[in-house]
């Protein structure tokens, strides 16, 4: 289940940007932790797709990763050196858009036993802001998870060039232009 307030924030930001309610969009922040089994790069690409809905077409993407040593085994072998390998646990992504606006995205993998924390969502325009004000997760609250698309349209076809740019940036250590067909 996706947190309803996060979805509402996502839609409000798209509408505000489209209608210029906070002036010209300058900056979008989206930071969230996704379900432990989800793919971080794919989720970051979905978030970049959402940023494109808000800020317009992306020019390039710069990505850096946090890699943690995680156990690949269970039981008493877990945590020993031979069972540990680097796993991408968090991506920080900078997306530059055509009108000079910028998105900072932070997509992490939520620890298995951790309770979800509401995503940080913020649009800064040159005449105001739209910001999510989410309640803390209370005991008994159904487990919600972050949706990097914030309820907006998303498709593998739309996300593929963005995921590709993220992977190329991770390999090169430099911003990667968005490559579009045609």
């Amino acid at each position, binding site marked *: 289940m996706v947190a309803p307030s996060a979805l509402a924030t996502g839609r409000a930001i798209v509408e505000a940007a489209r209608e210029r309610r906070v002036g010209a969009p300058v900056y979008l922040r989206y*930071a969230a*932790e996704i379900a432990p089994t989800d793919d971080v790069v794919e989720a970051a690409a979905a978030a970049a797709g959402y940023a494109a809905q808000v800020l317009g077409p992306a020019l390039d993407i710069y990505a850096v990763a946090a890699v943690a040593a995680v156990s690949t085994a269970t039981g008493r072998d877990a945590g020993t050196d031979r069972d540990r390998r680097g796993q991408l646990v968090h991506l*920080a992504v900078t997306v530059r858009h055509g009108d000079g606006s910028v998105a900072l995205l932070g997509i992490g993998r939520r620890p298995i036993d951790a309770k979800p924390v509401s995503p940080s969502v913020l649009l800064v325009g*040159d005449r105001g802001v739209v910001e999510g004000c989410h309640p803390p997760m209370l005991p008994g609250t159904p487990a919600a998870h972050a949706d990097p698309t914030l309820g907006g349209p998303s498709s593998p076809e739309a996300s593929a060039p963005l995921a590709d740019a993220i992977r190329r940036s991770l390999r090169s250590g430099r911003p990667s232009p968005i490559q579009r067909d045609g």
Partner: protein
Amino acid sequence: MDSPPAPGGLGTVYRIALLSNAMHQDSYARAFARHPRLRIAAVIDEPGQERYVAERNRAMAAQHGVPYVETLDALGDPEIDVVSVGAQIERRARLAIAAAQHGKHLWLDKPPASTATDASAVADAVERAGVTALVFSHVEAPWAVALRRAVASGALGDLTALHLDFHFAKGNTLGLEGRKVPSGVGPRDQWTFRDAGAATDPTESTHNVIAKREIAEVGWYPLAHAHVLTAPNAIRRVYATAGAYFFPEHRDLGLEDFATLTLTLDGGPVVTISTGRTGRRSHAGGGRMAVRAVGTRDTLALDGGQPAIVVIGGDGAPTAPRSRPPAWGDATGFDPLVDHFVSCLDGAARPVLTARAAAQLVAVLDAAYESARRGTPVDVTPSTAGTMAGTTPGAVL
């Protein structure tokens, strides 16, 4: 060189000289005056300063009932224990070095110098003189201390990411036609921009500057938070974007009013920062101080600048900067930082942000400006990043 004053002890009252009120000195002076163990002794500046600064110096001296002296010879006064350096950024390093060479302990405005080379020279002078130096930041604000304690407690596990959004909600921005992106990427030989009559303050700095380089000016605060939260891991690489989006003065002078930084650290975590001067409409209080700290066990998100009061209404920006009480009681931590400084003077603590650590942060600023200019990531210069000798991990935990 004079000998540094011997460390005091409980009950010692330190006499402090205010060296120039060109920028933020009056704010520092009010906090010094509130502390029972500091006594403001004099206001000092070089002769020949712009009239606006000289007038502010005289006014501050009158306010605190102390003499105003226009000569740096006054730094040799043996009755002075501490010098607070509040000059323009262009003069800051030179004056700090002069005060250290007189054996005075230092309270330094931020950033302590305009380049990493100059900031390193300050750190060298401080270490040679054996004096105590602390660079201003917000890291002693109650919310920041609570965050550091949460991280140090292990409740979040190992930090994997820090995401910081730090914005000054100052200035009546009305939307800017013709944003300039990138901006702030030209030569950085000038930092202080005032109009000739010093009669306007569009960015609500309270010291009548037209525009500031906001990566250094506002960005200093999230950088300092990131530094103390991740120490001793060194910042090795910076990717920055910068532009003029809000203020015509920034656009016309080619300065950045908003920027983003992505930092790569030895041993992690990844750090992202947005920072700048975004206008009164951008926050219900004085400005966003939002941190999302992501760990291998849990995530913590807060806004240290969240106001305790929100007023809904009106049809535009407020007519003056807001002075809402922060929900945390104290968003910036002036008084706790002064208290910490006095403990350092006593020899009971090490400065949470030393001159050496600050020089490393200025090296990060240098790399950020270069990155914004090139449009690519830039490594922090090793010669200035050096070792994290000035870092005192856990010093206040």
